[in-house]
């Protein structure tokens, strides 16, 4: 019943967003503020995580493949893995935790303190003032953060490859450029659009449904992070399969 309730509510909210998105008034300033809040403020966390991820992957692949004489494949494997999987998925998981919980907590707090009611009572729309800025900002910020994470991750791998595996950086970069095709990047970023939509709409929906005081806010926050994370992991499988069938087998 809860799953159906969520599916129905999610669908209705997406419908409301689409209905309101192209009708005036437009709150571009709110969208920009949210891009700053979601995107810029997540940069350092994403950078650290991406650097660590790329570095560890280089290490693991490097020492694992060295036994089979395959150390020189590290640049290809790391770059492919980061762009197609680790970049989008790890960045989205981080954003689900940081931003998803933040949106849910903020919207839920506004709900229980009647601020959402006040927005309506003052003749304005919570969909336009609260939901749309967060959803649009997530759709812009998450792919950009992922692009940034991809770059940092590959850079981290290159540094570790140089220091630990004695792989020349110029060789590393040549191999990365030779291996990658634009679809590797684009399919990874396409996943983030799906993840961003899910995280932001779920967080807004749950926040708007909250009751039960401060405990309700806490419950909403936890629920959003868990649900978003599970969705990212499961949908990543289906999206990967979809892209393998439609993009890479035809490429």
């Amino acid at each position, binding site marked *: 019943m809860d799953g159906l309730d969520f599916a129905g509510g999610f669908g209705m909210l997406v419908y409301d967003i689409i209905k309101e998105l192209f009708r005036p*008034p437009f709150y571009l300033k709110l969208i920009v503020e949210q891009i700053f809040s979601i995107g810029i403020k997540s940069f350092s966390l994403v950078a650290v995580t991406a650097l660590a991820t790329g570095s560890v992957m280089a290490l693991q692949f490097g020492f694992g493949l060295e036994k089979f004489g395959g150390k020189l494949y590290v640049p290809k494997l790391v770059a492919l893995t980061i762009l197609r999987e680790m970049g989008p998925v790890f960045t989205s998981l981080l954003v689900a935790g940081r931003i998803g919980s933040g949106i849910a907590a903020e919207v839920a*707090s*506004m709900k229980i*303190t*009647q*601020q959402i*009611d*006040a927005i*309506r*009572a*003052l*003749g*304005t*729309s919570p969909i336009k003032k609260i939901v749309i800025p967060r959803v649009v900002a997530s759709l812009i910020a998450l792919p950009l953060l992922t692009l940034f994470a991809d770059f940092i991750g590959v850079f981290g791998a290159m540094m570790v490859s140089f220091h630990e595996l004695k792989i020349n950086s110029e060789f590393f970069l040549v191999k990365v450029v030779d291996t990658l095709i634009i679809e590797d990047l684009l399919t990874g970023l396409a996943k983030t659009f799906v993840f961003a939509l899910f995280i932001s709409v779920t967080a807004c929906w749950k926040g708007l449904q909250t009751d039960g005081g401060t405990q309700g806010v806490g419950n909403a926050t936890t629920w959003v992070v868990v649900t978003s994370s599970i969705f990212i992991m499961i949908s990543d499988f289906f999206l990967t399969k979809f892209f393998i069938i439609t993009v890479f087998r035809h490429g």
Partner: protein
Amino acid sequence: MNNNDSNALLRLVELQKSFGEKHVHRGINLTLYKNQIIGLFGGSGSGKSVILRSIIGLERPDSGKIIFEGQDLMSLTERQLQPIRTKIGFVFQNGALFDSLNVEENLAYPLKEHTDLSDAEILLRVNEMLELIDMKGANKLLPAELSGGMQKRAGLARAIILKPQIILFDEPTAGLDPQNTKRLLANINRFKAQGMTGIFVTHDIPAAFEIADQIAILYNGKIHVVDTVENIRKTKDPLVQSFIGEMILQEKKE
């Protein structure tokens, strides 16, 4: 006061509302006339606030009509209700100020959304309003920095800054000490002197008697009585006396 139909601003007709098994409204009928304030009493959980929320569309009654400006608000969509809501002010119990905006931004919100006033004109209106609610100079304070009484007064100011035709007060004095209650009521009376139409939901009987022109009592899902303050004071109706009896006794002692 001339209470004929041409002066009726709002009519509630046979409103019914249930929450699950609980049948809260069993046929609410109430008419609000221009320049009239109705003080609405009822027991806890009787659905007083639900009446106000239904009028402004925050709740949807199960059936009935809410007639305002010749149209039934129940038949309007959420989007169609938005311009109507600029004509009906709602004063929330705890003010419901936007906590990420300071006092000036909160009061400016309706003006920025619904008027073409310049920033300078908006600031002028906001400052005038702050002076009327005894909060001059509080522009840059955030809601978290305000006392409960100040939050309610700021909420009141935000609700009426567009000069709505009707103002709905949802327990405005709840939780206030006597001094802040007196200050809030003084503010409301100041606005009332300029002409005000509204419904004042409260448990605070002396406050309602001070502000209201008529008293309505909600009992068992219906409006039991609507009468002038004087008639309510003198009534022999046992139900009405159960609400106001202690207050009358106290006044007699004094």
